[in-house]
């Protein structure tokens, strides 16, 4: 093989590999990217069933209930417009409390409730998740 041809073959291989990677990544992204919802979004757009999503909002006052097994917790997340009941089994983050921001990772159920596999609580003002800050802000401007 001549040097020029080899260079060309290698370059083509490289391009093919990168294109393949991009296609693979894009197709996987379509299924796997988990979108961020606030309870009001669900009201507007319908339930995103069967896929991993994030649900963000404020833990509603008086809504935290612990189940008798000691590890499951039920609470309600709201954004000022709508609310969503959430179930989570596990150790809740240290800053998980009522009237405080939370992002739950998991799936919606058919009845509109949410089963979380992971909870991210607001650390302090410095560590407010930007998605949440954006959503809360958006919600505020929607209020009359």
């Amino acid at each position: 093989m001549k040097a020029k041809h080899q260079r060309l073959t290698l370059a083509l291989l490289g391009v093919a590999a990168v294109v393949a990677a991009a296609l693979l990544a894009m197709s996987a992204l379509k299924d796997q990217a988990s979108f961020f919802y606030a309870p009001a979004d669900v009201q507007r757009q319908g339930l995103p069933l069967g896929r991993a999503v994030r649900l963000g909002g404020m833990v509603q006052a008086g809504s935290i209930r612990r189940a008798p097994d000691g590890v499951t917790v039920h609470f309600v997340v709201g954004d000022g417009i709508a609310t969503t009941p959430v179930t989570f089994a596990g150790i809740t983050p240290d800053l998980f409390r009522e009237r405080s921001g939370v992002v739950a990772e998991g799936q919606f159920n058919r009845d509109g409730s949410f089963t979380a596999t992971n909870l991210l609580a607001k650390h302090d003002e410095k560590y407010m998740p930007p998605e949440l800050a954006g959503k809360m802000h958006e919600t505020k401007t929607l209020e009359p």
Partner: protein
Amino acid sequence: MIAEAGLAALWFAAALAALQLAMAALGLWRGQAEPVAAVRPIAIVQGGLAAVAMAALIALFLASDMSVRLVVENSHAAKPWLYKFAGAWGNHEGSMLLWVTILGLAGGAVAILERRLPERTLIATLGAQAGIALGFYAFLLFASNPFARVSPAPANGLGLNPLLQDPGLAFHPPTLYIGYVGISVAFSFAVGALVTRDVGPAFARAMRPWVLGAWIFLTLGITAGSYWAYYELGWGGWWFWDPVENASLMPWLAATALLHSVTVLATRDGLRAWTVMLAVVAFSMSMIGTFLVRSGILTSVHAFAVDPERGAFILALLAIYIGGALALFAARIGTVRAGTTFSLVSREGGLVVNNLLLSVILGIVLIGTLYPLVAAGFGVQLSVGPPFFNKAAGPIALALVVAMAVGPLLRWRRDDAGALLDRLIWPIAAAGFTGAALVVLAPPGVLPLFGLSLAAGLAVASVLPLVGRNLRRTPLFTWGMVVAHLGIAVSLAGMACDSAYTSETLVAAAVGQPVRVGPYVVKLDGIKPVVGQNWSALEARLSASRDGETMVLRPQSRYFSDPVTTTSESAIATEWDGQLYTVLGQADGQGRWQLRLWWKPFVTLIWFGGVLIALGGALSLVGRWRRERRIAAREAYA
């Protein structure tokens, strides 16, 4: 006084970097001798001054000088001294100062150590180093001054994020930064070689130790960061595909590809343009990494401050450096003559496959990491997590493992496919046997099954290059390759075992109630309060028994007052065949305590493999260095 001295040192260092760049440019354009002679000493002094500035900052933290804003915001007089020391870089400004200090010291080291490269190329390299440093000095001085004072000085500081109050802080950031910066040196060599049109084996040999060194530190930094996250977060995971983790993985992938292609260039004078391109890509990845972590666009324990102005500044630096490098590449690559050619079934061919697969993985990680940021720009909020990365990158990583097993068994230039298959009999047998045994004895999932089988095959294949050789006369860099590839096999086995055989239990346990996890029965003996230097905690006493032997674990829930935070400190017992990982949760109000327990068989292999990989790199580095010295001595003699 110390703060002003540090700031002055920083200004002087910045001025010297500008001078270094100007002298290098002048010397190269006009071909004058005086500016060229000045570049080396300037580079050395510039590195020294940056180190003085860093030392000043550390001194301020150790002395808890509360008139300095950075100390006030990130430190506290009651903090243990190690965290005052390491806390100097546990914040935005300090970590950028550490970055530029390491950059300056690396430039000084190049100026002192590099003797074989043509003088003009070296001057161009040091000029490029100065150009990079200048941007970061400007960033520090104009947007992130670490020495700013506050008046009046408060009585005490706000403290350091407790998650960072760990010995890991003293080790993880500096190692990663040395890795990032080492890659920038490799990049500077590439720029130097492009400027003087001198891309060839000599350039590859000069660049190789820096690539290897950077790669060793990146490997160690990633390994340390992974273990730190594993025990500190209390989530039982060792890799979360968090953007900041990806920010360290992407330069590592690029450096791994570069490390292999630079060998082709140094040994066989092939892959010239590709190697230079990879150097540019690797540097771009470490810049993107710095940008992702330091600009505050990500939410994480790494994102110290959310300041859009700083993000824009780093983004501008990023655009200037990457754009400039690509422009130089495009302008000059036409003048780089093609290197020697090779047959596709050959060591070179194997290394090309390695490079392609690594590039593909890099592409996937890059897309997955940047996609949410791009989407956010369009007003869509989403996150890309482990399901995406595992699904997209996992299969390709396994293909890479196959290539890794085959590659070292290939001869340079040209090889015979039939003979290769003969050499591969033992690895294939090992993989097949492991796979069959696992399916019969303890069937794991598909990906872990492939992972464990391939790990066995790779482990056998990686030691084959030693078979039939006189082990004492085998060059150290061959040992290095064997150890590093073996490390990958070990690490892969650990990952597959962890994902296939981990058992997890989550309960609210009463005192004395037995709980099963894996081969253990764990009992909560009681809870008591304990006090540390700057925290208080609730500590559980757990006794875990297995086969009649009992040991005690003490996970804690810690409370820090400066700043007010609670963290859970996991307790981990390491056995030869895995780790028992315990986390204490909250009380449930009825006398029970939440416990989260994991039995993770052979999980330690992940980090043990990481250390082996780095050790392989170190052996290679020493081996190459000794050979270079021998060649230099022979040349001097002749």
